[in-house]
């Protein structure tokens, strides 16, 4: 579903990503790991079409993101790192606004919003202002906006960021529920989350792909592998 081919991204003299290549098959749930500043968010933004790569190509279902932006963006649901939301809107108005921007037809909008709200458990706070919601509900709402329009590909950038342990478990369970229907790329710092949710893990370090592993095939703990990879003791780029 996603094919990243020799992708590099430069911001002036800064090389944020260098020569990254990987593929993600339809239905796979892939964890994206790496220390802060490794280039995870940049890679996710490239896949969502936020900006184009400086070199290389990102293909979604064989189509170049730069050439058929609108068509591909309909297939993608994205939850950015800091979960940006319109705090002065009610949850219902916010979802309705997102539905309009995603081009969901007026007739099906109500059903789509209802379905997504139920899935994410935000129907009880529908009429409350987003800015007044707890962090947990805000995160659920962020996930709901990503899920609207039933995208085939979900890109979640640190979805449990700032949540308390109970909320983390709830969010993890929610992602588990979604995995059966979609391809998911999940970035996180919580290694146990990746172990519980994902089948495969990609580790980025200093803008380079440092490891691409099937979790089933790992014998050592993910933590050991992660530390060795980021300390450059080993290089595990083959799956």
């Amino acid at each position, binding site marked *: 579903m996603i094919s990243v081919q020799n992708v590099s991204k430069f911001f002036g003299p800064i090389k944020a990503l260098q020569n990254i290549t990987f593929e993600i098959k339809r239905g796979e749930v892939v964890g994206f790991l790496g220390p802060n500043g490794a280039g995870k968010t940049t890679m996710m933004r490239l896949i969502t079409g936020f900006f*184009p790569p400086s070199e290389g190509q990102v293909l979604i279902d064989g189509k170049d993101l730069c050439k058929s932006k609108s068509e591909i963006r309909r297939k*993608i649901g994205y939850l950015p790192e800091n979960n*940006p939301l319109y705090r002065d809107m009610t949850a219902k108005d916010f979802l309705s606004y997102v539905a309009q*921007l995603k081009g969901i037809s007026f007739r099906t909008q109500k059903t789509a919003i209802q379905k997504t709200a139920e899935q994410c458990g935000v129907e009880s706070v529908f009429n409350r202002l987003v800015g007044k919601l707890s962090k947990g509900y805000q995160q659920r709402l962020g996930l709901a906006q990503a899920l609207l329009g039933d995208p085939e590909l979900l890109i979640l950038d640190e979805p449990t960021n700032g949540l308390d342990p109970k909320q983390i478990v709830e969010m993890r369970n929610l992602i588990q529920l979604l995995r059966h229907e979609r391809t998911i790329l999940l970035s996180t710092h919580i290694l146990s989350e990746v172990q519980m949710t994902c089948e495969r893990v990609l580790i980025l370090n200093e803008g380079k792909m440092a490891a691409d592993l099937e979790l089933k095939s790992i014998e050592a703990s993910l933590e050991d592998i992660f530390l060795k990879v980021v300390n450059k003791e080993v290089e595990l780029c083959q799956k």
Partner: protein
Amino acid sequence: MSKVIAIAARDLKSWLHSFSFYLLAVFFLGVAGYFFWSGLSYFSLVSYQVATNPKLQVVSLNLTEGVLSSFLASLAAVLLLLIPVLTMRSLAEEKSQGTLELLFTYPISDVQIVIGKFLSLLALVFLLVSPTIAYFFLARAVGAKFETVSLLTGYGGLLLVGASFVALGLLMSSLVERQAVSAGIGFAILLFFWIVGWMAEWTSPTLGIVFKEMSLVEHFRDLGRGIVDTKDLAFFILFISFFLFATLSTLEIRTWKK
């Protein structure tokens, strides 16, 4: 088009739910009311003096020249002060809250975002300005009958000036993340385009013509008097298009490859 309307409606609703808009509206309508009252009173005084002094009867007096054009010019000057305050939030707030990232990843184009933002601000300007038409109905009640065509042309011109201010303010909002700074710089540049025509008298004739042609006041003057000149319309349309295009370009900087 429905996505453009959705963006415009969201922003408009957000402003209409905020206290600051009503504060601005009260200020604007209060100041506008004072300008109208003082303009009409002065006109009435001058008319009386002309009517009672035969030596002055060579002077031609009419309400469009005497009241409408100066009133609309004063409103434009107040809008010059207020519109940067309205535009400063537009893109700067989306940037600082991170919601612009969401918009950039939805199936909408940057053009739709810019036009949606522009329309919402234009609607706000319309909401601010349109109640002042009531003053002319009140004046009619006391016998001051303004020409409808001049009134419509004048208000059309005022909206064009407002749209020009909005387009420039939107560019500032896309460039500067800090809202107060965006409003300050926007005001300074608008002021330059407002008064640049005055400098024409102190420079060489060639440069003077350039300065005059750049001035928003010069192009608004005739419209404010109810006279439509295609040259003025073309100036405003070009001015608005240029700054909207510049706003679009600043949003598209992120799509540059290096």
